[in-house]
């Protein structure tokens, strides 16, 4: 990422809290955010896996897309709002139940990923979708969504507010004291709640592989929510460094690294995000390519690698057993939970089998690497039994 001058950077409503807590502030997606606090990435990472980590993700792009003229029929209104966004993405939004949320991709005409995002159907606000996009892409994403909505729906950005992610095995018990009803949510469910008389949007989601919540709150209440969460001794603030190592262990792609406008959902091993109804209708951008890739015409595929020795970082070449370059690492680093170097990268499908022995080139030296299943560390999402 290009270095930005501090004065060019936006601040989240929690900026002063990060400074006070000794956060090391770095530019990220145009925002000044903490990469770590004094305890360091390793300790923060482990804390999140064992207790509850609190992340400021206010730089991301939460928003609401609402029908301008709802009929009052919740199902019809949902169908109408879903029909506005579905032409941009590959997910089945019409099929969402009230309160359900889905990971999906915004695609260009060639089936490449413009962004990955979350789209949720708000149960108590018929005809409204809750949409969260990535920080670095949000201006373009919002413009595309607003254009697709035309005069039928209004996009209300909420990215001036606070978005807090509480992640880890203790997150649910912490939430029980704060917004008890939110603990009834299952993984990938979203609802609006009242917290101390303030409306908040809570989803049971996150990007660490742990059970957890993301809470959207107005900017003037963000600090109060942050402070109240941190009163609990099980909660500590966690920076972007551990956020990245946690999501890497969880095998989750990061936009701008593992995903970009050339990468299709099938190449990125996100086939689950191309919903069945949409596949059958072949009515999403780049459907021809994506369906052909799904049928086997694939030139590269995202895989997970365990690397022996020094971590292979983004840009490192992936080599076959004979030393021929066959692909590239798109995210890589050290996995604190495993004590090993891990990486995500793209290789041709005939090299992508689990257990395949490859190499990675780190500073000009070939090191052994093996294709392993992802996630590297098992997900611990809270799935409600149906």
């Amino acid at each position, binding site marked *: 990422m290009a270095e930005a001058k501090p004065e060019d950077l936006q601040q989240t409503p929690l900026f002063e809290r990060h400074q006070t807590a000794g956060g090391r502030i770095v530019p990220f997606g145009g925002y000044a955010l903490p990469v770590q606090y004094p305890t360091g*990435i*390793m300790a923060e990472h482990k804390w999140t896996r064992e207790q509850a980590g609190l992340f400021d993700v206010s730089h991301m792009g939460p928003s609401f897309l609402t029908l301008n003229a709802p009929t009052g029929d919740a199902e019809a209104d949902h169908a109408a709002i879903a029909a506005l966004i579905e032409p941009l993405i590959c997910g089945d939004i019409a099929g969402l139940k009230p309160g359900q949320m889905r990971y999906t991709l915004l695609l260009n005409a060639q089936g490449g990923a413009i962004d990955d995002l979350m789209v949720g159907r708000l149960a108590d606000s018929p005809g409204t979708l809750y949409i969260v996009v990535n920080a670095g892409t949000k201006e373009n994403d919002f413009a595309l969504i607003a254009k697709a909505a035309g005069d039928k729906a209004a996009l209300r950005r909420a990215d001036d507010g606070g978005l807090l992610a509480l992640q880890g095995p203790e997150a649910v018990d912490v939430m029980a004291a704060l917004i008890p009803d939110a603990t009834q949510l299952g993984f990938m469910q979203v609802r609006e709640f009242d917290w101390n008389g303030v409306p908040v949007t809570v989803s049971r989601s996150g990007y660490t592989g742990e059970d957890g919540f993301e809470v959207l709150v107005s900017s003037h209440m963000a600090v109060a929510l942050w402070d109240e969460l941190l009163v609990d001794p099980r909660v500590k603030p966690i920076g972007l*460094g551990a956020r990245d*190592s946690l999501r890497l262990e969880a095998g989750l792609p990061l936009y701008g690294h593992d995903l970009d406008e050339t990468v299709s959902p099938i190449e990125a091993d996100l086939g689950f995000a191309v919903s069945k109804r949409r596949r059958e209708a072949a009515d999403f951008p780049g459907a021809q390519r994506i369906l052909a890739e799904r049928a086997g015409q694939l030139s590269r595929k995202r895989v997970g690698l365990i690397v022996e020795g*020094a*971590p292979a*970082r983004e840009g490192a070449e992936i080599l076959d057993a004979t030393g021929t370059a066959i692909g590239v690492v798109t995210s890589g680093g*050290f996995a*604190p939970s495993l004590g090993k*170097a891990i990486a995500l990268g793209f290789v041709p499908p005939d090299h992508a089998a689990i257990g395949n022995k490859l190499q990675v080139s780190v500073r000009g030296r070939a090191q052994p690497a093996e294709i392993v299943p992802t996630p590297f560390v098992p997900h611990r999402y809270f799935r409600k039994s149906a």
Partner: protein
Amino acid sequence: MTTKFTPDHEYIRVDGSTGIVGITNYAQEQLGDIVFVELPKVGKVLKKGDEAAVVESVKAASEIYAPVSGTVTEVNEALTGEPGLVNADPEAGGWMFKIAISDAGELDTLLNADGYAELTL
């Protein structure tokens, strides 16, 4: 025995014609948790400023440069199994390599402790 410093946060502790090289406490604090150290080969001939070793934190790799010219005579093998020694004890147990100094005059171009302390204020 005297210790000298580079502006890149390496130290060299000089004992006669040999120097022990590592990174300063300030540097390890800046790097954070160190998870991997790549050491030079014994016998490697280095010129002042050459890349001699690499330390990797969770986030990134950082090169360690030779503070002076010379030949690597010994490396701290303990770091292979326990890279965190660089965090815990950078200026003693976390040393990286020993170098037979080929041009003692180069030591005069390095910072002394006061000069280095000023740099990291």
